[in-house]
Structure formats: C-alpha cells, structure tokens
C-alpha cells in the first residue's frame, strides 16, 4: 500500500526543507520527496494543496491511564484522541494502576498499543517503585521492555540521593530521566499559583520557587552524574533561566512546555473552573512571556500536552478538591497554531521542530523527519481550518479542558502513521 501526498508545503526542519513538494510513501517508509512525482500503480493520492506537510508530531507527555484507570482513558481512546489531534506518537507516563515500574506492566501497555493503538505508543517507566520515592524501580528491565525514559511524573522524587542514583544507574540505557520539578513541601496544600489571584480568591497557592528549587537541584545532579535530565512541563520564568544557563554550561538538560502554560495565566482561575487547575499551576504573564521566548530560542526543546484525562466527577465539585490536570491531545495543535503562530510569536517551522524533530532526538525515537527511509509518520496541518472546541466531540474518554468554546484557526488535517492514514470517525 502506497500513499502519495501531493502538492503540500513540506516543512521538515531536520533537513531544512520548506518547499511545495510531493511526498511518496511506500512500505510504511518515506520513499521520496520531489516535485510532480509520478504516481506508482495502486497508490492512494491525497491532494494536500495549501496544506502543511510535516514529520509526525510526537507528544512526549501524556497519561493514557491504562492499566487501572480506564474510566478516564484507555490506550484505544487516548491514541484516537492523539490521531485526531495530529499526533503520530505519544509517550505515556508511568502513574497507572499498577504503576509502570516493572517490565510486565510495560509489556501490557505495548501489547494493548499493538492491538488497539491508532498511533505509536512509547511507555515511560517509573523511577521509583510505586512512585513512592523510596527505592529504585527495576530500571534495567523497564529499559529492556521498551521504556524510552524514566519519570515519577505527578510526583517529585524528593530524595536527592535516590534521584542521583537513578541518574547514574540509567546512564547506560541512553534514556533521559524526566523531572516533575515540584518541591512537595513548598507546594503542600496548594491548588494554584501563589500570587495576586490566590490572594484574591483565598485559594492556597504554591510559589514559582516550588518548581525553580527542584529544577536547580536536578541541573546540579545532572552535572554531577552526567545524566540527561529533562524538565517536564516548565511553567516559570525561573525554570527558563536555569535551563538556559545550564545548557550554556554544557549540562545535559532539556525541557518541555505545555500549550496551556503558553497561552493561559493564573487569571483564568478567577472563573472557578476546575479545568484551570493543574500541576504545575497556571502562572503569570511574565512567566508566559519567558516560556515563549525559551521555546523560540531553543532553551525549551519541545511542546508536550501533559494530557491528563479525568472523569467529570473528579472535576465538577469544590475547586480545592478537584483533580489536577487537563486533556490536551485534541486541542494542542490548534491552540498553539492560533494563539502563538498566527499571532506571530512563534515561527511555524519552530513549532514543527519542537513537536517532531526535537522530541525524537531527545528520546532517540525513530521519526521526527521526512528523510527517505524514515518511518512514514506524517502530520498534515491546515492553517485555515476554523474550529470551535467542542469537548462533547472529543475522542478522549474525558472532557476536562479549559478551551471549550474557543474559536481557533488552524489545526491538524491528516495524521499518517507508518504509511497508513489514521482515520478517526468524527463524533
């Protein structure tokens, strides 16, 4: 089965390509790029005139909730949401039930993904057993089973000695440690950012320093051990500054930022909508500006959604008792295209690089490029598509988004995984 994507504007940052070209896909691989390619027999032709053809987008931070919390999301529903949102691959965090802290759980997730997954699924293993922060998980077995990184995401490993040992132990595996940087004492009891909004609403807040303190610690531990540390969901100007300085000093640290931390501030919490509650919390305008600057200049390596599905019952009650986190897979690309690219804050090619080439490189994943021979994972964007975010139509099992009702211009148009169009029936 072959596929010919005709006449789209191909942007492939890994190869410095930005030109109107055809993309020929054969046997699940990128076969050739060029003008007016001859269609082989038996080929499905897609007219992508006026569209943007890029390497498949990789979301390196999602929660698929399977095993154990299938009422929130499953591999099947989460990967459908990913495909609908323009992603060809997702990395799923370890805070399932049971926790992905041993090879059997990794095997289960990968088996599910093989049968029910619509996009590629790369599991991330836990750093510590049961995410308790007390003893190391079986890290070598996790790596052998296919985990592409290690993280206790959702919790911060507060014991610096244990974290140091995790960094050392995993050095031979070539897979980064991903830090949920949040000092749990500084953030204890907090629902939102500490600032003028927490004062006004009387909600307990956590200071930006709760993140910065841990980012600083993890950078120092990366320097000590030589490990690659990746900072998940950067939310503060302090994190951007610390990571920028560390990179300049040659320390192996990388970082990601979520769409919601790029376009929303703590002001959104004034709505009392529990879908504005996540960890780390929405911060200030100053932080948002620093995050955008960091994303543009490469201090921040990639955009990741931190897709965190929760059932309505976990979000509809009292704000301080609501679960942390929001879904993101089906809104991320459109939100960033509309609010950052269309507004001129982020060059289109940078967005594409931060969502394909860069996560692929930092996790050593196949893909992230349209080079001949690469896996045929392709995301096609339509910059003129006008949509209104309708949570009721999400493919995700959950609806917890702060973007409901937003009118957005630009979005995913087609998702190709391994040469096959990932078709998701509209809801």
């Amino acid at each position: 089965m072959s596929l010919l994507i005709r006449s789209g504007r191909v942007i492939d940052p890994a190869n410095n390509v930005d030109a109107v070209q055809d993309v020929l896909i054969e046997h699940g691989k990128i076969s050739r790029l060029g003008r007016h390619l001859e269609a082989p027999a038996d080929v499905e032709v897609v007219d992508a005139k006026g569209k943007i053809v890029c390497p498949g987008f990789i979301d390196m931070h999602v929660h698929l909730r399977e095993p154990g919390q299938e009422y929130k999301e499953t591999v099947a529903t989460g990967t459908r949401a990913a495909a609908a949102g323009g992603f060809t691959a997702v990395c799923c965090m370890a805070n399932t039930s049971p926790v992905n802290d041993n090879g059997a759980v990794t095997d289960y997730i990968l088996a599910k993904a093989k049968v029910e997954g619509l996009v590629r699924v790369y599991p991330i293993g836990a750093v510590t057993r049961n995410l308790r922060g007390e003893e190391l998980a079986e890290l070598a077995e996790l790596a052998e089973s296919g985990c592409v990184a290690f993280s206790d995401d959702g919790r911060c490993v507060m014991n610096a000695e244990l974290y140091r040992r995790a960094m050392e132990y995993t050095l031979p595996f070539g897979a980064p440690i991903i830090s949920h940087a949040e000092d749990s004492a500084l953030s204890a009891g907090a629902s939102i950012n500490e600032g003028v909004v927490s004062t006004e609403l009387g909600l307990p807040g956590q200071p930006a320093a709760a993140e910065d303190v841990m980012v600083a610690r993890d950078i120092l531990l990366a320097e000590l051990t030589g490990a690659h540390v990746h900072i998940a969901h950067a939310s503060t100007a302090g994190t951007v500054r610390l990571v920028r300085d560390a990179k300049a000093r040659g320390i192996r640290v990388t970082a990601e930022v979520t769409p919601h931390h790029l376009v929303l501030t703590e002001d959104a919490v004034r709505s009392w909508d529990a879908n504005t509650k996540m960890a780390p919390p929405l911060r200030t305008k100053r932080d948002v500006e620093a995050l955008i600057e960091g994303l543009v200049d490469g201090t921040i390596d990639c955009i990741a959604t931190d897709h965190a599905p929760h059932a309505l019952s976990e979000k509809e009650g009292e704000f301080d008792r609501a679960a942390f986190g929001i879904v993101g897979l089906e809104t991320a690309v459109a939100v960033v295209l509309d609010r950052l690219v269309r507004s001129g804050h982020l060059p289109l090619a940078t967005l594409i690089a931060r969502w394909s080439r860069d996560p692929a490189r930092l996790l050593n994943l196949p893909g992230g490029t349209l080079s001949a021979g690469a896996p045929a994972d392709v995301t096609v964007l339509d910059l003129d598509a006008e949509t209104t975010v309708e949570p009721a139509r999400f493919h995700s099992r959950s609806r917890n988004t702060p973007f409901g009702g937003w009118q957005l211009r630009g979005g995913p148009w087609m998702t190709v995984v391994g040469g096959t169009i990932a078709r998701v029936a509209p809801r």
Partner: protein
Amino acid sequence: MGWTRKDLLSMRELDAGEITLLVDTAASLQEIASRDIKKVPALRGKTVVNLFYESSTRTRTSFEIAGKWLSADVINFSASGSSTTKGESFIDTAKNIAAMSPDVVVVRHSSAGAADLLARELPCSIVNAGDGAHEHPTQALLDLLTIREKKGHFDGLHVAIVGDIAHSRVARSDIHGMRKLGMTVTVAGPPTLIPPFVQELGAKVSYRLEDAIGDVDVIMMLRLQQERMTAGLIPSLREYARFWGLTLDKLARHARPDVLIMHPGPVNRGIELAPEVADGPYSVILDQVSRGVAVRMGVLLLLAGHKGGDGA
C-alpha cells in the same frame, strides 16, 4: 437604585451603590429586634435553607433568626447527620436540596469558591456565608453597618485589620467593601500571615502592631487559628500574643481615644485580644453580632424580593 442580582457571593463583585443599598436596607430593619413581637410577614411562604458544611454559631443562628423574623420557613442543614456522612458529594447534596424548591440557600463551606459553584449550578438564590479563605460578604456588611452607626459616615475613615490576613475570608470581604466606600485599609500581622500582593486589593501593609493602630478609626482584630503554629507560620501562641495581642496598655499608648475595637468572632481571649479590651469601652463586638441579624434580614429580603417576593 434597585437590587438585580440573583446571588450574594462576594463583596468584590458589588459596587458602592449596591453595598450602600444592602447597608441601608439592614439599617431600616434593625428596629424589628426591639419590637415586642419580632415578626413581619415579608417572606411568608418563602423557604430559606441554611447549608452549613463548617461549624458556625453566630452566622448560622443569625441567618436563622433573620429568616424567622421575616416569616420565612428556615431549614437548617449541617454536614454531620446528613447524607454527606454516607459519601454524597457537595454538589449532589446541593442539587437534591434545590430540587425541593427553596428560594434562598445560605452556604458555608471550607472550600473557596463553593458558593460560586452553587450559584452556577442551582436556580435559587445563593448567599455566601463564608467559603474557605475567600469571602464572607454578610460579615463585611455587618461590620460596615456597625461602623456607620458608630462613626456616622464611611468616607475618609481608616481601618486596621490585624492578624491572620492570609487565611481570613473576613479580611478579604472587609478590604473590598471598605475600599469601595472610600475608607483606607491597613492590614497588619507577621509577614507569614500576610498574603502576597495584598496591596493589589487596595490595602496598605504594616508589620508592627504599634504602627498599624496609631492613626486609625477602627481596629479589626482577627482570630488566630491554632493550626498556624504547627504549620510553621508563627513560633508560638505566647510570642504571637506578646507581639500581636491587643492590650489596654497598647491601646492607651498608641491608639486614638475614640477608636472602635471590632472582631468577627469567635475571640481567642488572651491571644489576639485581652479580655479587658474585648469587654472594654472601645469594643463594639456585641454590636456587630446584633447588626448581623439586621444585615441578614436585608440580604434575604433583597434576594427573595429579586425573585418576586412581596417586599417589606
């Protein structure tokens, strides 16, 4: 100017005209307390539910008396002894109560935003009787009524609010209400009990009691919760009482002779307030409590009236 809101959720959302209307309405109802027969038919046939998820003496009793003097049917709900102990969620309980068609639900809850949540979800009027550390608008209104009675006006008055500002819903409602009526507000306490950016709410900040009470017309002392100590916010009650407790001696040396001492209660006697101050000539603490009934009558009347009640 008339009342148009369905709910009373915060002082922040009100403008000066609305606040004045609430205070005036309360003032006009005050004389009912001195009648031999304390009952007017204004809310006959109306139902008021007190939905209290947090313990309360003053506020709950005050709303109950207010409702009864206006001839409303008042039902008290408290979280203990209800389906809440069987695991029913707040929002479910509230929806079930709303299904019984009350006209007004008065809610007290430990979570900030709880009243706003009910206002969004329920068709009846909601009165916020205290939500976490967010707001407690009827307390601010009774503070304002008391101040106006004692001082005759609002404009240009200076109020010091002293103590645990960070965890106080009363402080937030007072700051908004007082600022909107042209008063100056200074908040004072150890820095660990002053919330960040409180200046952006329009308050000045002082870290020394003696400075804060020097040039003010009203001193509002706040209750210090014992758990602030275990949370590491203050070293000891002894030290707090020594530096932040208001005594006759400190008053005599630093405050104006005509200063009013207020407190939303319950008072920790001997901690934030010396008993001689709480019971002394400057204190209007019990006046606040009696004004509380008038304020809650006014609020119930305006809200039930908004829904087509027959008025006073």
